[in-house]
């Protein structure tokens, strides 16, 4: 691996850790500022297929299928007094690992895959939800910063074991 690619991998690891921290800290405005205006934010529905038939996710149904405007609606909604699903907010812990830099053009674009394990605890409930999956992220360099311009989250469950996705993945 070239030194340049090592440094870039480190940079994107730090980017993803910072993102996880914003989300876990319920700092949605800071999180939102990491997004590129042309973002596509998708989470396809995972399905059970026969044998090794792929892809094993739906190409036309999603748990998230958002652009920047819809993500803004979600962030704004979470700030109203009526977003019961997150009152009080879930305690979440996002662990991001297996970060792999697949494509990298300095000061232009990058493709990064990573694994996400998301622990979620609600209220006094002693049960917890675990959401895990793989992120396929694309970054665009804009105004001197890397912005997330595409995320496709491939979740590991066909039936989600969480009461809702009032949280981001």
């Amino acid at each position, binding site marked *: 691996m070239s030194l340049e690619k090592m440094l870039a991998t480190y940079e994107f690891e730090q980017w993803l850790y910072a993102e996880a921290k914003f989300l876990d800290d319920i700092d949605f405005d800071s999180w939102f500022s990491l997004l590129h205006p042309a973002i596509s934010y998708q989470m396809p529905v995972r399905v059970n*297929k026969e044998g090794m038939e792929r892809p094993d996710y739906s190409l036309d149904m999603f748990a998230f299928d958002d652009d920047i405007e819809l993500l803004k609606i979600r962030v704004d*909604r979470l700030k109203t007094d009526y977003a019961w*699903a997150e009152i009080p907010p879930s305690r979440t812990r996002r662990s991001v690992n297996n970060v792999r830099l697949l494509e990298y053009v300095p000061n232009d674009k990058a493709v990064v895959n990573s694994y996400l394990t998301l622990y979620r605890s609600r209220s006094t409930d002693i049960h917890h939800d675990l959401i895990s999956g793989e992120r396929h992220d694309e970054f665009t360099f804009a105004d001197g910063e890397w912005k997330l311009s595409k995320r496709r989250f491939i979740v590991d469950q066909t039936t989600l074991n969480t*009461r809702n996705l009032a949280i981001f993945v």
Partner: protein
Amino acid sequence: MIKTNINLEDMSQKEAIEYLSESVQPEIGAIPAYLLGDPMVYDIEHKKVFLKTWLFIGHESEIPNKNDFITRDVAGYSVIVSRGADGEIRALYNMCTHRGMKLCRADAGNKSSFTCPYHGFNFKNNGDCVGVPLQKDIYGEEFDKSGLGLHKVRIESYKGLMFGTWNDEAESLEDFLGDFKWYIDIFAGRAEMEVIGAPQRFVIHSNWKIGADNFVGDSYHTMVTHGSIVKLGMVPSATYSKKGYQIHTSKGHGLNLGTPNPDFAFPEELKEEYKSNLTNEQYDVLANLKNMIGNIFPNLSFLISHTKVKGQLISNTSVRLWRPVGADKMEVITWLLVEKNASDDWKRRSRESFVLTFSPSGIFEQDDTEVFTDITAAASGTMPLVKQLTYNYTMGLHRTPVEDFIGPGVVFDDKFTEANQRNFYRYWLDLMTT
């Protein structure tokens, strides 16, 4: 007289059923909390409701081609629903008749036959057993496979909606739906409809009846639970949800009809198709429809929702199954339906609004599931039974139905009443105590 020191666990099933008929009083709006958490009630429900009535399986458009199949759950049992080479739809119990192994583990696919992973018995998608490995050698020349066909499940469709039942004595699906078909026509039969993509699935720690209750008649909650939507300007006002009609028919079915609507909620270019599929009266309802929220007994809810997304009005039509997986747990399965002849842009925007509002990430959906979970937790265990905690379902008991509505059923002229919930629990109780 209501007994004291009640404990369903110490009662026989017969005594528990007697206690149900004493303590559940839909006509006076008294529904006890223990119905939502007690394991004995759940067991009786499985036998008396879910093994007796018609249950939703899926939409015919999910298996459009010959040999397409889906696997679905009917009252806790996996069923293969397959379109045969002859075009006919059949439902087969997903269990090998030789030793009981589950035959098919995929959600959907295209196959003309299924091979058991245990000993390799092979079954055509009409259920016939067509292959037994080493048959002549180990079973002899005279072996007759004809008795080994897969168990058939009764299946019937109405307007593309497929229902199955384990009850061979059940009335026909159309008789079960009765007058409610008039309204089903509007959401499922107004045009040629198709399901987009795979259904969404998620699990909630909630009793299934809370979902059915919410959709069958509870428009009252939208003011508060969904207050955030008003704040975002997606619907006009907090009392938006009051205007319209609440309607129920026999067998516990019911809906809330939001009307009038100054805008046409559906693709304009399909007006002729709608008119050809609906009566004039039904088309009149469609043309003024703002939203439609209802439940086909026991656990299939449906929804037409018309909201403003990114400054543009758009509607989405969905059905959702509240599939019980325990007294305090259900799997929610949702399907998006669109007009097959709508434009690609309309379909895309309809899906976008569905995902934004009523998928697991949906900004309506997620606040409901939070409420459902907490209600279930508060209703669980022995205390709600011993202390005889009872919910108040008296809203609108003083009102009389209107006589001049153009559709069938018992109709109230705004949506804020609990007549539909009382009707739901009445039929539920009738089945439970039969």
